[in-house]
């Protein structure tokens, strides 16, 4: 057989290939050990010496051409993917990767809340956990004889007169307002301490996040608007919210904020004590006496402040029913967040 007729044969054969199987047959016919091309190569020694080189080159060219024709045909049959390397893994086996660690749910909650406020333009600040009586009480318009100053409600230090463990994050308000001029928009997360007997909802240490804004024309309506953005971002757009009048020494007017129960949607269940509402934070307009203590002109400036317990928010958000779980650091707990 001469090369030219084989070439013609190849063209017509290839045109008739319409499947992977036919292609394989085609490949075997020409390229297998006993295929047409092997026969041509085998015939080389029978040729006259001077033709051998020329013929060999032509056979080689034909072989290369054939390989690329097959590859082309394979692509046009769409078999490129299917014909990849064989699957050798049992994909049901565990995946291999460095396991990521988790941030504590308290940290995650703080981060989430902080970021809502920083996106609104607030800054984050912190302050010491050992505080002066002035910053924790006096500066916040809590009178000398107020019950919260009792040793029942505040941890005091032994060898230091007038030093205590802060019982709320509000002292940072006093520090910030003393140190900077308005406008101020700050959130303060941190640890706080109160000598409470330990049970499923009370601990002697927990976390709060405090926020406040001071400028020339901040109103109670602004407080409502800002906290609505916060509550909807954390608990979802479909919650209802209400501001109930309340009392705090450092704000006037003051309010407590409830959201419609995220479990029963307001129908009343055991989580909300059948009320349909969950209290999430306290807030109000910064009391003029607080401004006076820190040297801000209460006629010129106004401001709002709010504070909430991080554990409470996290417990509601994640459905955790015992506050002590946060501090046991059981990995089976931590790895859920």
């Amino acid at each position, binding site marked *: 057989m001469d090369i030219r007729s084989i070439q013609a044969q190849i063209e017509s054969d290839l045109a008739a290939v319409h499947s992977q199987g036919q292609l394989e047959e085609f490949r075997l016919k020409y390229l297998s050990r006993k295929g047409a091309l092997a026969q041509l190569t085998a015939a080389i020694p029978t040729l006259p010496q001077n033709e051998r080189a020329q013929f060999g080159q032509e056979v080689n060219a034909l072989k290369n051409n054939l390989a690329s024709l097959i590859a082309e045909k394979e692509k046009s049959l769409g078999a490129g993917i299917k014909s990849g390397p064989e699957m050798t893994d049992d994909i049901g086996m*565990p*995946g*291999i990767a460095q396991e990521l*660690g*988790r941030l*504590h749910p*308290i*940290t995650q909650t703080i981060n989430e809340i902080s970021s809502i406020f920083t996106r*609104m*333009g607030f*800054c984050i*600040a*912190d302050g010491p*956990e*050992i505080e002066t009586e002035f910053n924790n009480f006096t500066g916040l318009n809590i009178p000398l004889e107020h019950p919260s100053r009792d*040793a029942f409600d505040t*941890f*005091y*230090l*032994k*060898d*230091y007169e007038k*030093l205590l*463990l802060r019982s709320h994050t509000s002292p940072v308000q006093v520090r910030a307002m003393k140190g900077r001029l308005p*406008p101020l*928009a700050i959130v303060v997360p941190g*640890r706080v*301490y109160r*000598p409470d007997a330990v049970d499923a909802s009370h601990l*002697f*240490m927990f976390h709060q996040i405090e926020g406040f*804004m001071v*400028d020339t*024309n*901040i109103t*109670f*309506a*602004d407080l*409502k*608007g*800002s906290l609505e*953005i916060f509550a909807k971002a954390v608990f979802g757009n479909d919650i209802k919210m*209400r*501001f*109930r*009048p309340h*009392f705090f020494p450092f704000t*006037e*007017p*003051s*309010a407590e904020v409830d959201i419609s129960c995220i479990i029963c949607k307001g129908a009343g269940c055991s989580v909300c004590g059948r*009320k349909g509402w969950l209290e999430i934070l306290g807030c109000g307009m910064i009391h003029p*006496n607080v401004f006076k203590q820190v040297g801000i002109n209460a006629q010129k400036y*106004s401001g709002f402040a709010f504070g909430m317990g991080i554990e409470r928010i996290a417990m509601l958000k994640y459905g955790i029913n015992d506050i002590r779980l946060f*501090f046991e*650091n*059981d*990995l*089976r707990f931590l*790895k859920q967040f």
Partner: protein
Amino acid sequence: MKVTYSWLKDFVDIKLAPEKLADKLTMAGLEVVSLEQKQGDFVFEIEITSNRPDWLSVSGIAREVAAITNSKIRIQKSKSQTKIKNSKQEKFEIEIENKKDCSLYTAKIIRGVKVGPSPEWLKTRLELVGCRSVNNIVDITNHVLFETGEPLHAFDLDKLSGASIIVRRARSGEKITTIDGEIKQLSPDILVIADARRPVACAGIMGGKDTEVTEGTKNILLEAAVFNPILIRKARQVLGLQSESAYRFERSVDASIVESSSQLSADLIEKLSPGKTVLAKSAGSGKVIAKNIILDCDRVARVLGVKIPAQKIKTILQALGFTVKAKSKSKFSVLTPSHRQDAALDVDLIEEIARIYGYELIPRTIPSIKPQAFSWGVLDAAALIKNILTGLGLNEAITYSLTERNLAKSLGQTENLKAVEIRNPLSREQEILRTSLMPSLVKCAGLNLNQKQEYVNLFEIARRFYATDKGPKEELCLGVLLCGRKSLSLEQGMVKDEAGLLHLKGIIENMLLRLGIKEFSFSPDGQIVRIEVAGKKAGSMFRLSRSALDLFDIKNREVFVAELSLDNVIPALNLKKKFTAPPKYPGITRDISLLLREELGIDDVFQALRSAGEPLLKELKVTDFYKGKQVPAGWRGLTISCIYRSDERTLTEAEVAPVHAQLNALLTGRFGATIR
């Protein structure tokens, strides 16, 4: 505080259904925590904020209901308008030792009473608000207490010694048996009502057993007074007593209603039990000074963010008992009523206006915030570190800052830190502020090992505390703990990776590098590895001793801990990045496999190799490490990769060979290594 629907109706017409009223009250700041239907009536349980003692009475809440519902309040006036004629035979004196302790004391003598059970309506009323019926006289005083908010007390006159009452501080050593039958030690911190001989009541808190009104009582002394709130609170705490009286006195009562409440009570006694008021005496004054507050309606709008008409403002304040006079077009002069001692500033009035107007009607607006420059700080650094550590697979723990004494020392803390102590801890576990994060982390490890965790890897970023000459110091620290075996799933199968000090080192090294800190060192010092950052002491890491593990009940496990002062690390942090072009010319890598004596530190070996390999040797890495059967005891097998490179040209084999030979010679010569 409990009130009933029907009792409120004595004072105000209510057209709202109880549920609706409960909602309204809640939204006005009197949070109704429960509403119960009982015996044909409705009982509201209301949480009263500490600034509103005037709400600790049915009439006070009725005033609020009237304001919310736009109706009129009916004030019950004492029915006997005639002044009591003091009988000439009656002699009785009141002496107040200090007017600061008791600003007003009134007493009435009612003779010929007949003590017996109360009528049903009175019993039911008291029971509904959670007060046990005792007898008609005691029930009447309680009824008036709940109705007006003024606590009253009735003594059996015949059991008092002498014809006088002295309001004085108790003397050391005095005792009293209170109505509940308990013997209480008294002290000068406690105000008492005394007769000529002894204390007969803890003022404002509880009466004495031996002068109480009983079946046989014929004549009574009816007390109505005002006591110093702080004194009552402190005495109540010292005595460990709680009572409806104390609850009201410590929040302060309205002095102007003392006399009328006493009269109301006397009238009821005369009506329900035979008896005649024969003497009324008082000492001190019931005058309450009204405050004058100037209220600017524009400021109301500026604070609330909503414009409330001046007329509406006036109506609201008047309904709450304030006297409102116009000062100018938008300004009022507001006089506080006697029951509103809490109101002192215009914002106090603004809250009242907002409450009754309705917080829910105030719009929600978004404040305009002016951008402020706050520099990147410690909080951001801490957040970055947490991010790096979780990336390295560690889990964040949060543990208590308060702990028991000496834990850190018994764990292996070598710094001699003086702990900051708590004056009033609730338990031994809260005695000091911790001087180290390590004990708390080890405790967490113990808990997790008990839960059959194979591998515990935790970190915490929190403050530790210690006493210095300048006062207590807070220091932000990082604690890391590793324990147990991590299962690594590799291509060749599962491998158990036992945690050790090198794992801790790897974590800290990675973290520091990622923080842009290049200058740090780990140096062994006895059992501890000291960590320095930027030439400063930054912390340490070590394996816990057996005795330390016993302390935490950890068995058959090794625990590794590290603690770093972030206050020392963060200043060295450098997040500025500068690009260096990747090497232009390829390098040549030559490996050396060798046996090295175990006591030789790899740091020293590398240092010598580096200086010998300059300038072509660019990098040295340990790429394999083995101990075991094929390695003689006291030796370790290592493979070191040496990477040679030039920034000017592609290196040739001929250039590298002599340098590499030099390194080999150094290893075999100076370090006595065997090349394999």
